[in-house]
């Protein structure tokens, strides 16, 4: 007997409203249809009504989880349009805050994944560790989520010696915690039972359907925009974390690897922090032109299209977020899985619906 089950928009495992209409044949999902629009606000249109400085704050609110990287990507776009040269210290500080954001996002995502397969203790422990990262962000910028520290031409805040020491202390604590938690996440018998072989996405499908971020890297595709060396990544020596398992377990492995890698990147960036001014002044309006700019978010590659006509406002702002790219691979993974695995598969992709719908 076949039936259709609406999964969401209000569902215990989903922190955000998205609906998936699952067509079931007995226990197996035969097809899944996403229904979007529950958190569409119309941010892109609003960005055309605000000026360039205000837009930097506005795009931060595309998503509360990777807020800094959104505003950084937008600022990079305007800098490219105006041909501004960002001072090296600002580049390094941007890396520091981006990587702190990646760490808190990955801890959050793996925590929610643990909650989805019913391991509440692990969820709580991962989120306890995440608070150390939040403390580091709060101590350096004054805010936990919306940092507001990125501006066109550089950064608004500096990290002094005392703050640097605080961040490094917190990183040591996080690393110590992860040494205990990651083996549980990756080697526990029952966790493996819920993750290994679930949500298969082979390399060819991942490429064809345009997967990005840990979803692509878990399927053996070495795709990471940080490899191009934007900001200071080129000088910090970056190698992507790639796994070949193609399942939910491989994607979790990628996130676990990136957590440790981010700790290293922040340490290296803070260690080599060059002395220079924090920003170059942003004056006048950008010249008429279009620019496409990309950056690597915790969930994958974000894509900004900016069009300016030389006025004091943008003509068009377009955001293609990583979850939007990952929706199509997600539907491929869901086809053929059993109903109890649906929640695990959705969270193994780490969806951010508010990004997707803006």
């Amino acid at each position, binding site marked *: 007997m076949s039936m259709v089950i609406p999964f969401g928009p209000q*569902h215990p495992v989903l922190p955000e409203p998205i609906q998936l209409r699952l067509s079931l044949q007995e226990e197996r999902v035969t097809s899944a249809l996403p229904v979007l629009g*529950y958190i*569409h606000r119309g941010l892109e*249109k609003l960005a055309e009504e605000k000026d360039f400085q205000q837009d930097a704050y506005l795009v931060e609110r*595309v998503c*509360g989880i990777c807020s800094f990287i959104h505003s950084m990507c937008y600022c990079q776009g305007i800098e490219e349009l105006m041909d501004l040269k960002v001072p090296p210290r600002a580049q390094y500080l941007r890396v520091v805050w981006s990587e702190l954001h990646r760490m808190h996002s990955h801890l959050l995502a793996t925590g929610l994944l643990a909650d989805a397969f019913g391991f509440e203790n692990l969820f*709580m422990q991962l*989120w306890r560790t995440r608070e150390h990262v939040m403390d580091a962000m709060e101590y350096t910028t004054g805010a936990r*989520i919306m940092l507001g520290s990125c501006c066109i031409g550089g950064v608004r805040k500096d990290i002094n010696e005392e703050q640097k020491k605080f961040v490094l202390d917190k990183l040591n604590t996080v690393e110590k915690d992860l040494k205990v938690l990651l083996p549980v996440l990756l080697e526990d018998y029952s966790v493996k039972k819920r993750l290994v072989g679930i949500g298969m996405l082979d390399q060819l499908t991942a490429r064809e359907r345009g997967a990005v971020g840990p979803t692509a890297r878990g399927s053996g595709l070495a795709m990471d925009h940080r490899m191009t060396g934007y900001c200071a990544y080129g000088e910090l020596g970056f190698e992507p974390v790639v796994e070949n398992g193609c399942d939910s377990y491989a994607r979790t492995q990628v996130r676990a690897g990136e957590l440790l890698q981010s700790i290293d990147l922040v340490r290296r960036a803070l260690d080599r922090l060059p002395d220079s001014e924090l920003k170059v002044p942003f004056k006048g309006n950008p010249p008429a032109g279009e620019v496409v700019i990309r950056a690597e978010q915790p969930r994958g590659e974000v894509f900004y299209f900016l069009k300016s006509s030389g006025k004091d406002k943008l003509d068009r702002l377009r955001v293609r977020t990583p979850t939007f790219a990952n929706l199509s691979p997600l539907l491929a993974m869901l086809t053929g899985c059993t109903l109890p695995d649906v929640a695990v598969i959705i969270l193994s992709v780490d969806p951010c619906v*508010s990004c997707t719908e803006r």
Partner: protein
Amino acid sequence: MTKATAKSPWVVHFNCNSCNGCDIEFLACLTPMYDAERFGVVHVGNPKHADVLVVTGSVNHRNRRVLKNVYDQMPSPKVVVALGVCGATGGIFADCYNVLGGADQVIPVDVLVPGCPPRPEAILDGILKGVEILARKKIDTEVVPPEKTIKIVRPEPKPEPADESAKAVS
């Protein structure tokens, strides 16, 4: 019964039109650092089990019906806590074409927690204020919803430029 519910309020969370900032701060409230469970707060997925509805974000055309549904499914008496400036007025998105305004456009809101996003301490405080109101609702006292003091400030529309050509002719 009254005492028991006030000692252990069950909370359901609905992300209405939020950017996730308030949602992750609300989830952080439940985890060991802030630990809402020490006040008896339990997070449930089913609105039919809940006493307190935590709404994040503003209301749009599409989720208006869903929010009303979630609220209607909760058994009375119930309390609504709206998180963040978006939940109060629409916040930074108030001028967007798809945003109708705060959560009070659809359902009665008892507590507004300001901030973008509010800190977990403020969220805990808001939920506990909601529980106080819930306890008063239980014993059938009239509870007046708070007067909304936050107003959306929109710039005045520019006056039409005087018609220069008409003047010249006259």
